[in-house]
């Protein structure tokens, strides 16, 4: 019965992929997104039941290669991530019904609909994969379909660069995964993704490092994060929501799948993961503060949240290695729950950003402002997303992070004092990142929605069509519900961790707000009765009119924080002179720019890329078009083979 739900979802997503390609029409696209919506409802039922009952589902194995079966499997972990996918997809599919229709070309619209379905299907199958081969196959399909979606508007140079960047990074990730899986396979002799069983200590170092790097690249951990701020702005907003909300979590799922299969993780793994997570959380939010492209800002914020999730995973490993299973469970629950929450509010924010960009035609937040008047509904959803991501109670962002804070506070339970110190340092980083994230979203919401419009586009912005609003309403509702009912949700899923009831807290908060509101209203009324109302303009410091240029700008708002983290935002001065002559003595003209130093890109990514390019250039010289040379290569190869196999060994 349960299996039928999954098969139904597969069928829906598959026909959603094929339909718009076969019948290239608006109705086919609508049907396609409708099918993905239906599949998500089926999956919600499936994952919910498994999490609630704790029973697994049985899928028959299909043999598709000798010695290798196409197996699917589901347990509580994968069910949790299926739930995550199923929670994001409905909003995105409703939103895309309308949003996709605004793409430039007809073919582009069809492709978007088809690829979105394929993308969802691939992510679903990665999460349900029963062995490494199935996992890798769908991992690649997931990467490639999202790559094509990133490249949907391939005419612009910026998008091409984004696509290429993403392509390289995702392939690098897959290469590491291959290495990791192969080394695991050599160790255990089995390609199943089940329990590993006891292995000799130290033998898992290579698989762990490879898988951590591979999944870390895909999840966007610092220093492998640079593809995110390029790829997310390039993709259509619905796809950005899926990529940031779900695909990054699929990488987290893969890493967790490996960690949970290991019977005894080592302590240093935890320290490494915790450090990487803390750095990602901090760097992500610090870079986001400086950003003024709305989608890029959200991408950086995704890096921060992935950092938080990895902090949770690191805590899990440390507590597990130190023999504290209750705390380990709490950290793991925190990490998974935050992953779930992040999927919800980040997809909400990307959908809202898509609406704002759709209405104003620009991604630069300095050009927004005053949208709360022209786009009130979108602004309300935006506010819900910002409150959630800033981890304000009782929204769901708070719920997930609270679990992690609770785990952190019990660091004193550890025997090793050095470890406790490390945890306290990580905790302070985590708290700092949380505070900065709150500042970041105050800025984003304030600059985007409040005050006066800063540009003509913003002033003329109109509320987006209904379907896009409904699309954003779904994750917004989920955000609030998942926050208020977090304790109930967790206990329904069978995770009884020590945790306050946020529903109670929410009610209390609501009552306090209501009481305050009423008190202010009453006071106002009584004041009014005492003195008559006077209508006049607010004092504008003596200036005759208030203009948008007098408002707080995005850069101005983050300036104090930028000053504090000055050492991180280093600048670089770039000269680009042009000369009349080859000897470079007569200056024609040129330009000089001072820009932010792209540290990771310039010091970590470009040098190896240049080295590889140089090597390739040298290797390509071997291909000189002369038959004689080719014959010589063959000859040399034979001689080398003889030497290596027969004489040297």
């Amino acid at each position, binding site marked *: 019965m349960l299996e039928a739900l999954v098969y139904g979802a597969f069928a829906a997503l598959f026909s959603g992929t094929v339909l718009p390609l076969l019948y290239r029409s608006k109705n086919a696209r609508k049907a396609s997104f409708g099918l993905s919506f239906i599949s998500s409802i089926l999956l919600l039922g499936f994952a919910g039941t498994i999490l609630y009952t704790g029973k697994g589902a049985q899928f028959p194995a299909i043999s598709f290669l000798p010695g290798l079966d196409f197996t699917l499997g589901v347990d509580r972990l994968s069910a949790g991530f299926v739930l995550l996918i199923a929670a994001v997809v409905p909003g995105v599919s409703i939103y895309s019904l309308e949003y996709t229709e605004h793409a430039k070309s007809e073919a582009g619209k069809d492709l978007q609909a088809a690829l979105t379905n394929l993308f969802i299907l691939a992510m679903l199958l990665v999460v349900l994969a029963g062995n490494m081969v199935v996992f890798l196959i769908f991992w690649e399909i997931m990467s490639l379909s999202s790559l094509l979606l990133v490249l949907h508007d391939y005419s612009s140079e910026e998008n091409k660069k984004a696509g290429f960047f993403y392509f390289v990074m995702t392939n690098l990730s897959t290469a590491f995964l291959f290495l990791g899986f192969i080394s695991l396979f050599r160790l255990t002799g089995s390609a199943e993704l089940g329990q590993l069983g006891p292995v000799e200590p130290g033998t898992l170092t290579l698989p762990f490092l490879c898988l951590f790097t591979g999944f870390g690249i895909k999840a966007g951990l610092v220093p492998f994060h640079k593809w995110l701020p390029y790829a997310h702005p390039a993709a259509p907003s619905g796809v950005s929501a899926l990529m940031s909300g779900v695909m990054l979590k699929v990488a987290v799922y893969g890493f967790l799948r490996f960690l949970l299969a290991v019977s005894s993780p080592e302590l240093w793994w935890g320290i490494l993961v915790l450090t990487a997570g803390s750095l990602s959380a901090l760097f992500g939010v610090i870079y986001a503060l400086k950003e003024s492209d709305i989608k890029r800002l959200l991408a950086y914020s995704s890096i921060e949240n992935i950092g938080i999730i990895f902090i949770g995973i690191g805590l899990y490993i440390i507590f597990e290695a130190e023999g504290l299973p209750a705390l380990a469970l709490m950290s793991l629950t925190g990490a998974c729950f935050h992953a779930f929450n992040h999927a919800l509010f980040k997809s909400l924010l990307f959908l809202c950003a898509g609406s704002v960009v759709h209405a104003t035609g620009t991604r630069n937040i300095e050009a927004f402002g005053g949208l709360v008047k022209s786009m009130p509904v979108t602004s309300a959803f935006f506010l819900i997303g910002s409150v959630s991501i800033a981890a304000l109670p009782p929204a769901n962002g708070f719920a997930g992070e609270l679990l992690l804070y609770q785990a952190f506070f019990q660091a004193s339970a550890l025997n090793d004092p050095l470890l406790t110190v490390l945890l306290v340092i990580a905790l302070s980083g985590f708290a700092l990142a949380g505070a900065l994230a709150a500042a970041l979203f105050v800025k984003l919401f304030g600059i985007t929605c409040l005050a006066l419009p800063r540009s003509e586009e913003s002033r003329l912005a109109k509320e987006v069509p209904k379907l896009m609003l409904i699309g954003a309403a779904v994750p917004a509702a989920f955000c609030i519900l998942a926050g208020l009912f977090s304790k109930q949700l967790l206990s329904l899923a069978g995770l009884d961790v020590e945790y306050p009831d946020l529903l109670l807290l929410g009610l209390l908060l609501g009552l306090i707000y209501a009481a305050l509101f009423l008190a202010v209203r009453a006071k106002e009324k009584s004041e009014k009765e005492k003195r008559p109302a006077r209508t006049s303009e607010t004092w504008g410091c003596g200036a005759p009119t208030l203009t948008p240029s007098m408002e707080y700008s995005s850069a101005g708002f983050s300036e104090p924080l930028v000053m504090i983290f000055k050492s991180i935002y280093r600048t670089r001065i770039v000269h680009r002179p042009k000369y009349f002559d080859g000897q470079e003595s007569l200056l024609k003209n040129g330009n000089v720019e001072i820009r932010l130093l792209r540290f990771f890109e310039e010091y970590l990514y470009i040098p190896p890329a240049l080295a590889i390019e140089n090597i390739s250039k040298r290797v390509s010289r071997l291909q*000189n*078009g*002369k*038959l*004689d*040379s080719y*014959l*010589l290569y*063959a*000859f040399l190869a*034979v*001689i080398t083979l*003889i*030497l290596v196999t*027969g*004489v040297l060994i």
Partner: protein
Amino acid sequence: MIDPLYLEGVIKILFVFVLISAALIISTRSLSSVLNTYTVQSFLLAAVSVLLYLIDGKSELLLLAGLTLASKVLLIPHFINRIEEKIKIRRDLDFTYLEPTTSLLLSIGLILLSYTFLSRVFGDLALSRLFFFGAVIGLSLTLMGMLVMFSRKKVITKALGYLSMENGVLMLGIFVTELPFILEVLIVIDLIILVLLTSILAVGLDSSIEEYRAKIRKLQIWNGGEAL
């Protein structure tokens, strides 16, 4: 019945001649002598298989000798001779990468290499000295054929180098692995096709070189560089 030891002696003498023929293919400039050397080499191979038949008594060896005689001594040289007459090139004077002297020195190195290699490989197998020696000659002949292919310029000589390489494979097959007869037949058919193709290419190249090159360039078979 002839004394096997005597036969072995004869075979060893033939080995020396095979090596000399290979050296000649590497260094001789006149095209007709290269062809003649190849014919002689193939004939020597046929003779070796007949002698081996006399020792072993395996009938495949006799068949092989017959096949070699028919294809490599008669048919293929006849074809190539006709090409040579048509293209009116009598000599192949140009060498790439290696001059003849260096090539010859290198081939001595190759023989030594094959010897060391095979003595390691066949160290455990109880192979009689004659068979081991035959394998060494076979492998060196293969390598020397490859050497001819990349060090000589003209298509005809390259084809002959390839043919001589195949002779080496045949020799290795006779002495060590005993290639199934059907495989040998297939290889011979391949060789004949190769010679036919070479004839078409070579004649085409000669009949109107400029036109042909233009055609090749148009097809972009080999980009850059000078096409053959």
